[in-house]
């Protein structure tokens, strides 16, 4: 294993994967508690159109997907506010459009189906150096932004009306959270794939919520599950020669199952944990 870790492609995959795992776990916690867990799926579908557009125009697919996903995230928030739609309706509209545009571009070009598959199912070991740099910079920016707004996000997630009365700009932070999620989903595509990346947002945080009694505890537990799943998934994938994305998501699920068992074992009892 030590020899394996000297390989550049593995180092790149690990570095990008761990940072994305942390970002997914933190954002996922807010999204689940806001009952917006499916936003990750919607934005992943939308970013499919961005990847297809990038391949069609012969520009970096990750960059094209970033532009499309962020624009769609802002558009979803606008549609939600102006048309009075629920969040899941607005995301449903845009995610269907994203898939349709992606399928259309793929059928028009015909030549990039193999490359498109690597985005659909993920290929953490095939991350290019330029993608690693982009991932490291943007994932660090996402985490720094969350840290800066952590208390406000926590307050509005727990009690939106009191947070507004306390001067928290809930509308602006809603949009910010959507944009950060869009960026993180796009960055996570190469790791878990468009079809599975939303699992990195939902499952580690869901596992963390099973065992934590405080918000800080839930953040720590979610990050631990996500990082262990990415590192463990990568190791299992190399050892058993299976797709890394599938191994990562299955490990996430196993961690969730274990956390549920731990929770059931503790039972519901009053008092601090």
């Amino acid at each position: 294993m030590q020899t394996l870790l000297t390989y550049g492609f593995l180092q790149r995959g690990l570095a990008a994967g761990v940072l994305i795992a942390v970002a997914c776990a933190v954002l996922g916690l807010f999204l689940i508690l806001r009952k917006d867990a499916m936003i990750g799926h919607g934005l992943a579908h939308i970013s499919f159109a961005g990847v297809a557009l990038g391949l069609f125009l012969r520009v970096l697919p990750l960059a094209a997907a970033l532009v499309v996903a962020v624009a769609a995230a802002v558009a979803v928030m606008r549609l939600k506010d102006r048309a009075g739609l629920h969040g899941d309706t607005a995301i449903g509209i845009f995610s269907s459009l994203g898939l349709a545009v992606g399928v259309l571009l793929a059928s028009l070009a015909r030549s990039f189906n193999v490359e498109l598959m690597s985005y659909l199912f993920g290929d953490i070991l095939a991350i290019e150096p330029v993608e690693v740099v982009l991932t490291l910079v943007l994932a660090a920016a996402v985490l720094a932004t969350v840290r800066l707004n952590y208390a406000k996000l926590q307050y509005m997630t727990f009690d939106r009306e009191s947070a507004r009365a306390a001067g928290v700009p809930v509308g602006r932070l809603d949009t910010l959270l959507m944009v950060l999620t869009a960026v993180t989903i796009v960055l996570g595509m190469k790791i878990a794939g468009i079809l599975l990346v939303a699992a990195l947002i939902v499952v580690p945080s869901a596992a963390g919520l099973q065992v934590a009694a405080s918000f800080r505890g839930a953040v720590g537990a979610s990050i631990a599950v996500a990082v262990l799943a990415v590192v463990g998934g990568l190791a299992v994938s190399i050892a058993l020669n299976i797709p890394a994305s599938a191994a990562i998501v299955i490990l996430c699920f196993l961690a969730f199952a274990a956390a549920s068992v731990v929770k059931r074992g503790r039972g519901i009892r009053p008092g601090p944990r």
Partner: protein
Amino acid sequence: MDLVVLRGVSFSYDGFPVLTGIDLVIKEGDFLAIIGPNGSGKTTLVKIILGLLTPTAGRVELLGAPPADLAERSRIGYVPQKATHIDPFFPASVEEVVGMALLAGRPRVAPGRDSRARVLRALEAVGMAEYSRWPIGRLSGGQQQRAFIARSLVTSPRILFLDEPTTGVDAETQTAFYDMLDRLNRRDKLTIVLITHDIGIVNKHVTSVACLNERLAYHGSHAEFCRSDVFRAMVERGDHVISHEH
């Protein structure tokens, strides 16, 4: 000093008038009850004062400024209606919930030593210090309400707004809760604005009353309210009235 001033405030939802021509002044040290039937605009009025809703007409001043321009939001305490209808599985300790108000204006993840001391003082003020590390979802409705009052007190507000704070809380807990509000008003000189349906509470605890039913039917001292036609009409209508001697 006038903490809240409303002049000719009106509000309508989709053209349907909810409040019309409200003139109201809340002075420092008041313990004001806003009473009125369901749909009379009580919650809407408080949301307008806080700047959560914009009036269709009229002028509002909160601590001397329009609510939207108020820089020091921390001087306002607010416990909304159904505050206790929280997600019971939200992973937050009582301490974290109270600290949320303190950290809302700061780029910090966790409270420092000073902030933590303030959180504990606020919890002590409402008799909840021993529950500081409990998950908020595991407290009873009355205990949660106390925790939310502590959250609204932790920033040392000048005025506290409470929207039907004891709905669904048992009688014994209600008594202890309103005794605590009495202490905060009399001992700590905290101005309190309380929305309630219960005239019994009004009779026992508050110093002034605003009776609302789209328009302001009455605003004045509690003693005068008990002699007013508005109060008589409420008694005749069979509203929840408990007589208390002062």
